[in-house]
């Protein structure tokens, strides 16, 4: 679906790996291209993107490519000397150095901290971090300086395609139904009742879930999954739109049919706008 939409929106010719892009001299090969005997060829499937003499290929579907300043949710895979290896869903591995973590009342990291790294983050822990820098070999350095970032306690993790997530001003969001959401740029969304939106508090409180909170989180999760299935962009407004529509109709039995109706209405609106 996404591929078709991309193609329809661009309306450009698709190049396969090995296809000739240009055989004239004077052109520069950009990303996702390679040069052989003065000719430029494509190295991935995608559409051509030319700026002056620079030829690039915009891939149709790709793994997550982190950029500086983006917020990601990842899982600790390994602990090495003074650093953690984190899986953030990109093609190359991400590392979190001990010096770029946050400890209360501190200061420079000592040898004791190095010995007790598992007390900060252990294997399989989920963390929220910011991309600090991207190296030349595309490996990523993360940091968790600040109270917003760090280990994520109990909650619901939903994985969606990363290209559906809209870049926004804020990625730590409190929805209308009091569900706190971390919208990771890498396509991982975390729903919980921990408030990370304010900077004033010193400690993030972990509260027990009430039944209503669990129902709200489940409904939000369902809405996100349906947004992904119908290839709609995921943002605070789109999620709240779906939830408002559901709460207005107040369904007792059939959640799924109501959501499908909502998407059909949205699609018909879009088509009318296009015409």
């Amino acid at each position, binding site marked *: 679906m996404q591929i078709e939409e991309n193609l329809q929106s661009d309306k450009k010719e698709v190049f396969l790996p090995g296809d000739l892009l240009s055989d004239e001299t004077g052109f520069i090969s950009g990303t996702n291209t390679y040069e052989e005997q003065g000719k430029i060829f494509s190295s991935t499937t995608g559409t051509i993107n030319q700026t002056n003499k620079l030829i690039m290929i915009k891939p149709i579907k790709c793994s997550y490519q982190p950029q500086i300043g983006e917020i990601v949710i990842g899982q600790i895979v390994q602990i090495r000397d003074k650093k953690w290896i984190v899986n953030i869903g990109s093609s190359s591995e991400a590392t979190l150095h001990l010096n770029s973590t946050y400890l209360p009342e501190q200061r420079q990291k000592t040898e004791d901290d190095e010995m007790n790294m598992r007390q900060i983050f252990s294997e399989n822990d989920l963390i929220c971090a910011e991309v600090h820098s991207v190296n030349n070999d595309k490996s990523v350095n993360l940091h968790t300086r600040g109270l917003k970032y760090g280990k*994520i306690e109990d909650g619901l993790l939903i994985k969606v395609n990363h290209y559906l997530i809209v870049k926004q001003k804020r990625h730590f969001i409190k929805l209308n139904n009091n569900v706190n959401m971390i919208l990771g740029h890498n396509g991982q969304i975390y729903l919980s009742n921990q408030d990370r939106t304010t900077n004033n508090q010193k400690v993030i409180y972990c509260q027990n*879930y009430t039944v209503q909170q*669990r129902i709200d989180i489940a409904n939000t999760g369902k809405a996100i999954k349906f947004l992904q299935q119908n290839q709609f962009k995921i943002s605070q407004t789109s999620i709240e739109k779906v939830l408002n529509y559901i709460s207005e109709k107040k369904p007792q039995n059939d959640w799924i049919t109501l959501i499908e109706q909502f998407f059909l209405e949205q699609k018909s609106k879009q088509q009318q706008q296009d015409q």
Partner: protein
Amino acid sequence: MLSTGQIEFIKGGIAVNIRSDGRKNNEVREIKLLRSHLICTSGSCKYEGEITIYTGIKLELGDQSQIKINVSSMKRTNDEKQKAQYLQELLESLYKTDMSELKVGQKGWVLVVEVFLLCQIDIAYLEAICTSINEAMSDLRIPTIKVTKNLLTEIEEYELLPNEPTKSFKCDKIYVVGKVGTELVKDMSFEEFYSVDQKLILVQGRNGNNKLRTFDSCGFDADDLMRVLVFIK
């Protein structure tokens, strides 16, 4: 692997009867079962849910009537092959039934059940595999065979009558109502259909006789149990 926070969230949800996707504890996911999906089999089923499973039953005449189950998946690694082997043994031990209805003269029908998963093999899919096999079994059509005995040579001759299929054979239906080694609810009871003492419970219904089976009465040896445990890990 899930993190400890995610596991606690799931456990807490089950304790108050709300799972993380909004279902109650005794609600199942929506599944779609298509019978007679594969044309060149005697009985088949396509299972569509969170995963897709194709099940087909092939009939052969052998010396003894029996059920053979072959499990395969998309992934082709040594680890996956070992898992498939363990799962086959597990399923064959579950579907051990009285085969007297399948006898044809001195020979018997061999039901070769082929299960193909469009994902990696996992013990969590045991319930899905069992339902798809149950459905394929109820779709099974066995052709009638005319047996004539030569009185002089005492050799049996078999004549296939493909236009007269029978549905006389009913296999056991296996329902997995608990999972191996997973503690779902703290105070568990039979009414809630959950695993008791971390054992697998299976409901077997044939000719109206329902039974509850646990690991002890499944015919598993200690070795089999060890294999299951290794398989889960």
